[in-house]
């Protein structure tokens, strides 16, 4: 039944793209985020729907779409270099079979991220992609939010429809993504033109934001809690009533603690006492190992190079009944532990060169988007009112990702690469319109003296 539903759904989606070929890009984003082939049982598994959608989107862009405004930006070039470099390290990987398996999905994400900015050349396309990405992620977030309210969830326990714990369906990843998209949801509720601001849209947006906040609680991921705290701080910083909101948020958090599942509060306590937690101790040991590994393998060991690690470390635990607890120091030997950090993931797998490219990409995105935000925040032109808030939403989401990435190996997460591609396209879009200002009307007719501005 589910198979037929997804098949019919995709058929309708593809049919609509006949009228507006850009929808093919949205179809690919939908397939990449929701992975309908993993939600169905047999039919879709046998059809390479993702490849078909990408090939059609590429063909439609190459043959039909207007390429006058398409630009190949510096960030796309860096993504291309990263793609080539990852290909080289895969060819010489420490673990060729495992590296090839990871390469099989990483290259597709990178290629799509390189291609995406070429298609994003109107305001509505930015909005459409943001909206579809959020609605697709909401298929996981809504189910996770409701289940958390009803059952409380648990680390590795909350059922997010798919059992294989990969892609966005992995607990820490969806926790980070759910928090990172909150600013974009709020932006869409205020500046959206597909679903224009109304009471219904605002209520749904707020409910979805609530579900997003519930995801780190339901999955009991410490990374998610840190992301909530960071986003809260960032939003307060930008708020006019920061003291009032800050006090309200603190009071709300204090009131909410007794309602949280006890397994959540006890797990969150391990952020402070990380030595008693094996997963946190392992992380520190893996990061140290990766740091040394990069020194001896500056070119990188290829995907999954962490598999060669092995180390013994001390784990400190409190055992016994409360009141008569004693400290026990355990010698633990671990082998092949994953990086648990995107930064170390890239450093170990792609070496210094790959890390430099990856870091440059993020740095350029952060700086570029912050620049746009600064330049347009005092803009009073109603036609450009969406620009600064959109830049801010992208920037806040990006910062949340950069924090989450410190604890989760999500360097090549397709969803994040799409957000990066969107930032690259946004920068070229703004630059193009700024260049054209003076000779061609931009965005929409300006209400205040367009001639004077043109002359300036």
């Amino acid at each position, binding site marked *: 039944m589910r198979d037929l539903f997804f098949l019919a759904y995709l058929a309708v989606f593809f049919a609509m793209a006949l009228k507006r070929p850009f929808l093919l890009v949205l179809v690919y984003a939908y397939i990449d985020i929701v992975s309908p082939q993993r939600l169905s049982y047999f039919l879709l598994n046998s059809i390479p729907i993702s490849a078909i959608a990408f090939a059609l989107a590429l063909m439609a862009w190459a043959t039909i779409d207007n390429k006058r405004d398409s630009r190949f930006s510096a960030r796309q070039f860096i993504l291309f270099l990263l793609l080539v470099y990852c290909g080289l390290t895969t060819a010489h990987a420490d673990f060729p079979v495992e590296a090839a398996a990871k390469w099989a999905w990483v290259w597709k994400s990178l290629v799509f991220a390189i291609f995406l900015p070429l298609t994003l*050349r109107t305001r509505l396309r930015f909005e459409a992609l943001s909206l579809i990405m959020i609605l*697709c992620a909401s298929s996981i977030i809504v189910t996770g939010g409701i289940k958390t309210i009803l059952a409380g969830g648990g680390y590795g326990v909350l059922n997010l429809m798919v059992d294989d714990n990969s892609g966005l369906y992995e607990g820490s990843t969806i926790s980070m993504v759910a928090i990172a998209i909150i600013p974009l949801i709020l932006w869409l509720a205020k500046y959206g033109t597909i679903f224009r601001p109304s009471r219904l849209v605002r209520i749904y947006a707020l409910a979805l934001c609530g579900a997003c906040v519930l995801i780190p609680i339901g999955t009991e991921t410490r990374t998610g809690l840190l992301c909530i705290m960071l986003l809260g701080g960032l939003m307060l910083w930008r708020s006019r009533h920061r003291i009032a909101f800050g006090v309200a948020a603190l009071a709300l958090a204090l009131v909410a603690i007794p309602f949280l599942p006890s397994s959540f509060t006890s797990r969150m306590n391990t952020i402070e006492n990380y030595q008693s937690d094996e997963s946190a101790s392992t992380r520190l040991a893996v990061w140290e190992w990766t740091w040394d590994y990069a020194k001896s393998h500056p070119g990188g060991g290829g995907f999954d190079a962490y598999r060669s690690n092995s180390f013994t470390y001390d784990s400190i635990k409190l055992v016994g009944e409360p009141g008569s607890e004693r400290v026990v120091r355990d010698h633990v030997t671990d082998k092949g532990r994953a990086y648990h950090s995107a930064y170390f993931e890239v450093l170990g797998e792609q070496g210094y060169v790959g890390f430099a490219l990856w870091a440059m990409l993020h740095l350029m995105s952060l700086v570029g988007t912050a620049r746009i935000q600064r330049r347009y925040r005092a803009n009073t032109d109603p036609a450009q009112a969406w620009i600064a808030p959109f830049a801010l939403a992208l920037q806040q989401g990006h910062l949340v990702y950069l924090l989450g990435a410190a604890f989760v190996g999500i360097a090549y997460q397709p969803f994040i690469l799409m957000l990066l591609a969107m930032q690259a396209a946004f920068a070229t879009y703004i630059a193009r319109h700024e260049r054209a200002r003076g000779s061609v009307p931009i965005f929409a007719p300006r209400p205040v003296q367009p001639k004077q501005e043109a002359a300036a």
Partner: protein
Amino acid sequence: MIDSFSLLLSHGLVLLACWRLLSRRDLDDESAADTAASQDSQDLA
């Protein structure tokens, strides 16, 4: 049950969004936004 609800809700909204995009000329051509905006204000009036 919850899974189906979530899937139906999100997929329904995606479809509705795409349906609305079909009639938006400014999806492909920014200058069409002006026409759409003026048409909107006429509709509202």
